[in-house]
């Protein structure tokens, strides 16, 4: 019940009664200045602050290598690694391996994304789909997908197929789970509003359910990307004759820690690039969402 229009005469005496005891102690409270966060933030540029940590680590590594505390057969020095990387790029073996690996991830990711999204739509939008699909997915998801490699080799041989299959399998589940949760988590009030606006069933899916599920689906995609590189590492250690994993296996046989580290860096770099792409996609598709950016 609102009483926003209470008669004024009842309000005035009350205020004066309340004021009297407050006014009595004339002691001034201690004041402290609230500093602006803007001033603090602009002092050191963000990119500099963010690169300082890794650079310090790199410097420490180089120092340990130069002083001999870190022998090269355990871990090569950053300087050596940079040189090896330059050589590998110059003779084309690294770029070729990267091409093969990226192609594997892309195929597996695409296949997994299509399967995962389709299944999520089926079980998210239709109750029949949920009954048929979800139970099976929840069951299969507990199987460690890497454990299926032997089975996949028997089924698909040792060519590209088992490698792509392993990546696909790893990608499907995070995407499915998040997209499905996204669809089911769409605000029921918005659905009701859409109904009251006269949207058809398909209109509701298109204008309300799918855009509402997008944040969840994109989170799933980011998880999937992480898993896809992980799956690639596993897949490429099995009977590979090309790719970064193959390069690494070769380097292991010759105790070349420098080449191994270069390959690891390439993995990390590719993963970073993929993550950047999804972030960009998020920024593009989720413009409407005001996000907390931290302090």
């Amino acid at each position, binding site marked *: *019940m*609102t009483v*926003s*229009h209470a008669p004024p005469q009842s309000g005035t005496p009350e205020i004066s009664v309340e004021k009297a005891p407050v006014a009595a102690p004339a002691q001034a409270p201690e004041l402290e200045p609230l500093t602006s966060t803007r001033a603090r933030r602009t002092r050191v540029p963000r990119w500099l602050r963010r690169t300082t940590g890794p650079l310090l680590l790199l410097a420490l590594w180089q120092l340990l290598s130069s002083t001999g505390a870190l022998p090269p057969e355990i871990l090569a020095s950053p300087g050596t690694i940079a040189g090896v990387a330059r050589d590998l790029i110059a003779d084309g073996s690294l770029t070729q391996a990267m091409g093969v690996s990226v192609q594997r991830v892309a195929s597996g990711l695409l296949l997994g994304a299509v399967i995962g999204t389709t299944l999520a739509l089926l079980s998210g939008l239709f109750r029949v789909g949920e009954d048929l699909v979800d139970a099976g997915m929840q069951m299969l998801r507990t199987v460690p997908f890497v454990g299926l490699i032997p089975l996949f080799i028997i089924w698909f041989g040792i060519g590209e197929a088992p490698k792509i299959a392993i990546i696909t399998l790893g990608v499907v589940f995070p995407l499915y789970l998040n997209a499905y949760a996204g669809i089911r988590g769409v605000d029921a*009030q*918005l659905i*009701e*509003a*859409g*109904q*009251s*606006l*006269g*949207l*058809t*069933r398909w*209109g*509701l899916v298109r*204008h*309300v359910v799918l*855009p*509402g599920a*997008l944040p969840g689906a994109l989170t799933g995609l980011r998880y999937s990307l992480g898993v896809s590189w992980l799956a690639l590492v596993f897949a490429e250690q099995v009977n590979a004759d090309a790719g970064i994993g193959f390069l690494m296996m070769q380097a292991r046989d010759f105790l070349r820690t420098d080449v191994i580290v270069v390959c690891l860096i390439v993995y990390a770099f590719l993963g970073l690039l993929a993550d950047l792409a999804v972030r960009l996609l998020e920024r593009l598709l*989720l*413009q*409407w*969402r*005001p996000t907390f950016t931290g302090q």
Partner: protein
Amino acid sequence: MATDLHRPVTASGAAADAAPETAPSTAPETAPSTAPETAPATAPETASTSAPEAAQGPAAVRVQGLARSFDGRRVIDELELTVRPGEFVALLGRSGCGKSTLLKILAGLDREIDGTVLVPRRKATAFQAPRLMPWKKVWRNVLLGLPGRPGREVAEQVLAEVGLDHRADAWPKTLSGGEAQRASLARALVREPDLLLLDEPFGALDALTRLKAQRLVGEVWQRRGCAVLLVTHDVEEAVLLADRVLVMEDGVIAHEVTVGLDRPRDLTDPRFAALRGELLDLLGAGPGTAHAA
């Protein structure tokens, strides 16, 4: 603006999740409301249900013997309600008395009902929360669900009517509470409704914004001439805006108070205060009971 064509809100106990029927393609809804256009589509449906009471004159809402239960508990029980075309009716009641349920039924969102409910084909709802789709810009929100492919200028026109044309390109989450509520109102108005259903639309606004929004709704109603059913728990708001105030209790319309004051209404008018007091008494929250509660 007045139309006596009605479409019954069909009960659908079994298919609870059935989507409401959308506007049939026979009648372009954005066209000026010439009643005959909709006649072929609705005549067969209304003939059987509304024939007996057709003699009572035009109505924008006609409800007879309406009942709605939740888990065996009757929230609405044999409710009767008639709203005349162009009439502004406020519906008061304590929380949980079923007034929001009634509004949902009239909006066609709740169809697990018994009884007869006749509402205009063109009706629109504004909810307590603005319920704008956060992923659509304001002007796209306004046009959402309209048949055909209406242009942006349609949205801008109605946004101008609620004083929000400058925010047409904004994302809903960047709007203030009052702005979002006005966008929600624009989204309802663009449908040119014969019946506008308002579910506590000012409940979440601060006092000053609420006063402005109330005035806006009053102006829009006078300009458009549509029937309005305003569900509220604010007695003052009801007396300020409505021609007739209904008080809901135990699932039926228990009391009815006609507000005969001239518009624009003056909050300081003693007759205004008298009506307010009367309604507060009916709600069991009069001056005598206020402090006890």
